[in-house]
C-alpha cells in the first residue's frame, strides 16, 4: 500500500501555494463561512449569481494544503455552472480531480470543507429565493444528507 504522504503530489502543492479564485467578491449575492472544529481550518465562499448561473466565485480563509487545493479545484469546477449543476457536484467530483479518492478519514473533512461551505451558500441563496415551501423542505433534506 502506498503511504499517506503520497497525497502530497505536485498538483496539491501547486494549488495550495497558488490557490485559484482566492480572495473576496465585492457585494456578493451570497456568502457563507464555516470551519472545521477539529483543526480550526476556516473557509469563506462568496458568489455572484446571474441568470441562475454562478458568474463568479471566490474563496478565502486558512487551511492545510489539502483544504486549499480542494477549494481551488471546487471553485474552478463551479465557476460558470448553472445552479442545478452546482447542486449536483459530489465529493467524488472534487476528490477525483486531485487523486484523493482514498484519503484517510481524518483528512476527508479538510478536503470537503469548501464543498460544505459551497453547498451551504447555495442552499442559503436558494432558500431566500424560493417561493414554494415544498421546494424549501426538499432542499433542507438534501442539505442534511450531504455528509
Amino acid at each position, binding site marked *: 500500500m502506498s503511504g499517506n*504522504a503520497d497525497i502530497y503530489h505536485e498538483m496539491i*502543492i501547486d494549488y495550495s501555494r497558488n490557490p485559484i479564485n482566492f480572495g473576496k467578491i465585492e457585494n456578493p449575492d451570497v456568502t457563507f463561512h464555516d470551519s472545521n472544529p477539529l*483543526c480550526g481550518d476556516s473557509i469563506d465562499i462568496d458568489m455572484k449569481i446571474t441568470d441562475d448561473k454562478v458568474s463568479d466565485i471566490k474563496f478565502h480563509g486558512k487551511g*492545510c494544503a489539502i483544504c486549499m487545493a480542494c477549494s481551488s479545484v471546487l471553485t474552478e469546477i463551479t465557476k460558470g455552472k448553472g445552479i442545478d449543476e452546482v447542486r449536483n457536484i459530489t465529493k467524488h467530483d472534487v476528490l477525483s480531480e486531485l487523486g484523493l479518492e482514498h484519503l484517510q478519514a481524518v483528512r476527508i473533512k479538510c478536503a470537503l470543507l469548501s464543498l460544505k461551505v459551497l453547498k451551504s451558500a447555495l442552499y442559503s441563496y436558494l432558500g431566500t429565493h424560493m417561493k414554494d415551501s415544498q421546494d424549501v423542505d426538499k432542499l433542507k433534506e438534501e442539505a442534511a444528507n450531504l455528509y
Partner: protein
Amino acid sequence: MQSAQTTFENLRKDFPILQRIVRDNKTLVYLDNASTTQKPNQVIDAITDYYRNHNANIHRAVYALAEEATELYESTRDKIANFIHIPNREEIIFVRGTTEAINLVAYAWGRNHIQKDDIIVTTEYEHHSNIVPWQLLTQEKGAKLVYIGMDDNGELILDDLDKYLATGKVKLVTFSLMSNVLGTITDAEKIISKCKEHGVLTLVDGAQAVPHMPVNIEKLGCDFFAFSGHKMLGPTGIGVLWVRKSVLETMNPFHGGGDMIREVHKYETTWNDLPYKFEAGTPNIADVIGLGTAIDYLTKLGMENVREHEIELTTYAIEKLSQVKGLTIYGTKDISKRGGVISFNFSDVHPHDVAQIIDEEGIAVRSGHHCAQVLMERLNVAATSRASFYIYNTKEEVDSLITALTKVARIFKL
C-alpha cells in the same frame, strides 16, 4: 546507585507500546504527551489485577472483596495527598478529568457564589476547559469574564490582573500552571498572593504541570486545583479536584445519587461527609487504582528528576529545532519558565500537512488549535504543530523529528 540518566533509559521497557511499529515499518516516536501519555505495564497490570481479583463495589458491602476494593480505591487518595502535598485527604474529589473538575467548580461553587456584575478572570493561554465553563456561568449570571493578556514571549501580563483586582468585583481568578500549547510555567505564587490580598479565590489547572514537575499545593496556597490521570501515566477517565475545606463546605453537591447522601427521605436529603458528598454513584474504581499505581511510578522516579529529564530534552529540542530554516517556535526560550511542550510552525506549511508527512516516519505530534483557540487568535495563527515530551522520550527521538521535518521541506520545496 543508578544515575538519573540510566534510570530514564531503562524505563522504556516498561512501556510495551513504545515497541510498536507503525505505518511503513517505522518505530513509533510518540511526541504527543501533552495530549495523553502512554501507560507502563505496572498501571495496565494494576487495572487488570483489580478486575481479575478484587472487583466489587466500594464503601458499602461488608464482604472481603468489597473491603479490598475500598482499600485500594482509598489508598489512591492518600497517594495523591502525599504526591502534591495536601494536608487533608477529604479535600480530594475524584472526577473524570480536569474538564469535569472545572465544570464541577463552575456549577457547585459558581452557581451560589457568582452574581450579576461579578468578574471572573482567566487568561489568554487557557485550554477551552478553563474558558467555556466560565462563559456558561457568567452568561447565566450576568457576570463578566475577562482575560489576563499574554506578551509576545508567551508570558502573562500581570498588570492586567492588578487592574481587574482593583475593581473590587473579582470573585475568582483561574489559570493553568503550565500552558498546554506554549509550555509556559505560570508564576502562580505571584498571582495567588495578589489575589489573597484582595480576598479573591484562585483555581489552578494543573493538568500539564502535575505530570511534569513537583507541585506543592500547601505552598501554592490556591483554593481549587485540578488535574487529570491520563496525562501522567494513568488511565483515561480519572482526574482529581482538590478544594480547600473552608471553600468546599460552602459548596452544593454537583450530582445527586448514591454514596453522596447521609439520609434520604421522600422530600429531603442530608449530605454525606467530604469528599463523598461530591462523589455520587459508583465511581471509576479501576482507574482510580490505576492512577494510584501511576503515582507510585512517578514517586519512585522522583518528580525533580522528571523535570530535570524534560529540561535536558527540551533544551536539546529547542536548540535543534531553532537550526531548522523557516521554523518558528512559540513561547519563551527561557527553559526555567517552560515545560516540555514545543509548539511550532514550519514556514507556510499548515500543521496538518506537517503532521501527516512526519506520521509516515512514525512520528506522532499533535497539529491543530490544541483546544486553545483564544491563544491561537492571540498568536494570529490558525494552528500549530506541537511536540511534547515525557519521561520515556530520548534525544534520538528528537533527532528523528528533525530528520522527518527535512522531508516536509523537500515535499513543500522550502
